[in-house]
């Protein structure tokens, strides 16, 4: 066990994967010499060699396409894209090739690769550096989308993603990289892709979130508990496949659901959560599922970030409205 940040835990998980499976290679922009813009691959090239950890030209489609070819040939590549806002040049490779090869070849060829991407805002970054467009990936059949929010989940989910026989998009919440520390086992363990994690049990209302917004979700829950409300907090952890049963279980119990995400509201993952809840727990609902989300705008620059990101206040307010409905 070591007390680790999320960033350290990811670094450790990658080291473990490189150590335990020779099919694992890492590739991406600046991940070798500098250890990546967030230093998640720090030290790995020195330790595991230039034949395992590759700096690449600036070409996202190339990175994913090459990793895909390697995966078909039997390797387990872990590609890094620097920010989710720079993943779009690779969108075609992901949707038209990576996610489809098993289908297209009727299981003959498969693409066990992981695409790691830092995502989300809140650090006053430049344009395109704060995106959280998870919905456009969760909509792709054949791809799994995973989002850890704690150091120990990060390790378990990343090792599970690398082991997975199918491709996984692994989204890393930038704002949490160094925000929390937790005891993380040093052993090789995996956390199942799919099931959500009940972060906190409660009776009156369910707050559903993932990634960096878990911080606000937790804080809002704590605030609400102070005024005597019992809040159940769910960390989805996996957006595709989404844990519909887990969400419905909680919604049925509390009858009230608030879903929180950074992405714009329209056609975001909050819609899917709301759709599932009303589909399967309508008669348990005492209030509509409400969405506390980013607005339908481009993620703004530093000075307006506060206008955009869901705050603890907004979550608490919407939760209270939901409780009063």
């Amino acid at each position, binding site marked *: 066990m070591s007390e680790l940040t999320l960033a350290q835990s990811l670094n450790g998980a990658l080291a473990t994967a490189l150590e335990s499976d020779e099919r694992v*290679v890492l590739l991406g922009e600046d991940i070798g010499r500098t250890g990546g813009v967030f230093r998640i691959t720090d030290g790995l090239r020195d330790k595991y060699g230039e*034949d395992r950890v*590759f700096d*690449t*030209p600036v*070409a996202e*489609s*190339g990175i994913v*396409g*090459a*990793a*895909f*070819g*390697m*995966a*078909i*040939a*039997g*390797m387990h*590549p872990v590609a890094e894209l620097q920010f989710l806002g720079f993943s779009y*040049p690779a969108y*075609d*490779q992901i949707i*038209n*090739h990576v996610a489809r*090869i*098993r*289908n*297209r*070849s*009727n*299981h*003959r*060829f*498969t693409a066990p690769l992981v695409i790691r991407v830092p995502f989300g805002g809140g650090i006053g970054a430049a344009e395109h550096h704060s995106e959280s467009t998870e919905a456009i990936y969760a909509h792709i*059949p*054949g791809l*799994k989308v995973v989002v850890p929010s704690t150091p120990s989940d990060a390790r378990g989910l990343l090792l599970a993603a690398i082991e997975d*026989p*199918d491709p996984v998009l692994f989204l890393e919440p930038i704002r949490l990289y160094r925000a929390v520390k937790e005891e993380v086992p040093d052993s090789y363990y995996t956390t199942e892709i*799919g099931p959500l994690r009940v972060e906190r049990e409660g009776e009156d209302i369910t707050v559903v979130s993932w990634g960096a917004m878990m911080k606000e979700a937790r804080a809002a829950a704590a605030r609400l508990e102070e005024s005597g409300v019992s809040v159940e907090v769910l960390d989805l952890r996996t957006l*595709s*496949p*989404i*844990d*519909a*049963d887990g969400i419905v279980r909680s919604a049925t119990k509390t009858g009230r659901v608030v879903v929180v995400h950074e992405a714009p509201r329209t056609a975001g993952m909050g819609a899917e959560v709301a759709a599932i809840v009303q589909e399967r727990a309508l008669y348990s609902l005492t209030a509509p599922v409400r969405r506390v989300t980013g607005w339908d705008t481009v993620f703004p620059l530093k000075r307006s970030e506060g206008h955009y990101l869901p705050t603890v206040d907004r979550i608490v307010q919407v939760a209270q409205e939901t409780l009063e409905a």
Partner: protein
Amino acid sequence: MLTLISPDGTVGDRLPITLEEMRRLYSDMVEARTYDHKCMAMQRQGRLATYAPFEGQEAAQIGAAATLRPDDWVAATYRDAALMWRAGYPWSLLVAGRTGDERGGQAPDGVNVLPPSITVGGHMIHAVGLAWAEALRGSDRVALTSFGDGATSEGDFHEAMNFAAVFNTPTVFLCQNNGFAISYPRAEQTRSESIAMKAEGYGMPGVLVDGNDVAAVFEVVREAVTRARRGGGPTLIEAVTYRLGPHTTADDPNRYRDEDDAVEWREKDPLERVRLLLERAGGWTPEWQTDLETRAADVIEEAVAMAEALPQPTAEEMLLRMYEQPTSSIESQLREIGS
């Protein structure tokens, strides 16, 4: 541009292969053309979905594939049935794919040929990744990727070429420049004099070859494959050829090209020149030709029969084909279908 066999069947001072090998290549081209004609006919009968014929491009495809080892990788396109077949992909699966059946994409075990890429340009980088993986684990397999003149305009072509050169991967890029991307002529596709010369901008050798000359194609691709196998890195080859038929069965070439061109190119037919050469060398008789054609027709008929005998695919298969283990969403949709 390298030509070894002229359209009239005469050769210069050398041929890279024996007469017997040449007979094999000829026989392969006859079989491929038989397949192509059969598919055109089937499509007209409504037995196939859209079909993209390769008539006129047999030399480029057969000549290239003949240089490969059975365990090499191939990433090719919707128009590369001849190439894929010569690399080990059964005709029956190629036909199955064209009937609209995903099972047609399932190469037999040991055949390292990817299902044909329908998107233009996206698959070349896969051959870079495949080759890179082989090099990393110390095998001497190479990856060959085939694509058209139009595909060279896609950004993915650029990234694939650059990655291959930067990481020195054993990849052979085979561009079949057949004059058109659907209706768009090669002369407008790019202002560079040749496609082969684009290789220079990546620090990679580029070779221009007569794509209707199976011996010349064989020679230049073999050289590239050998170099790649020995760690010498990638090569771009431009095989200049012509698509004699329409882009696909949904296309009408009269809208955009002069049929005189096609007539001119028919005179450069890749099969006929080899036939003339073989005849002159005593390696061709009308009886052998009849024999070849009969055998080819039988082989293709059998392949068609196999493809058409595949049972109707089920909805369950469709859902189960998405992941190794069905996810919770697939499982719940399976239940929904079952109910």
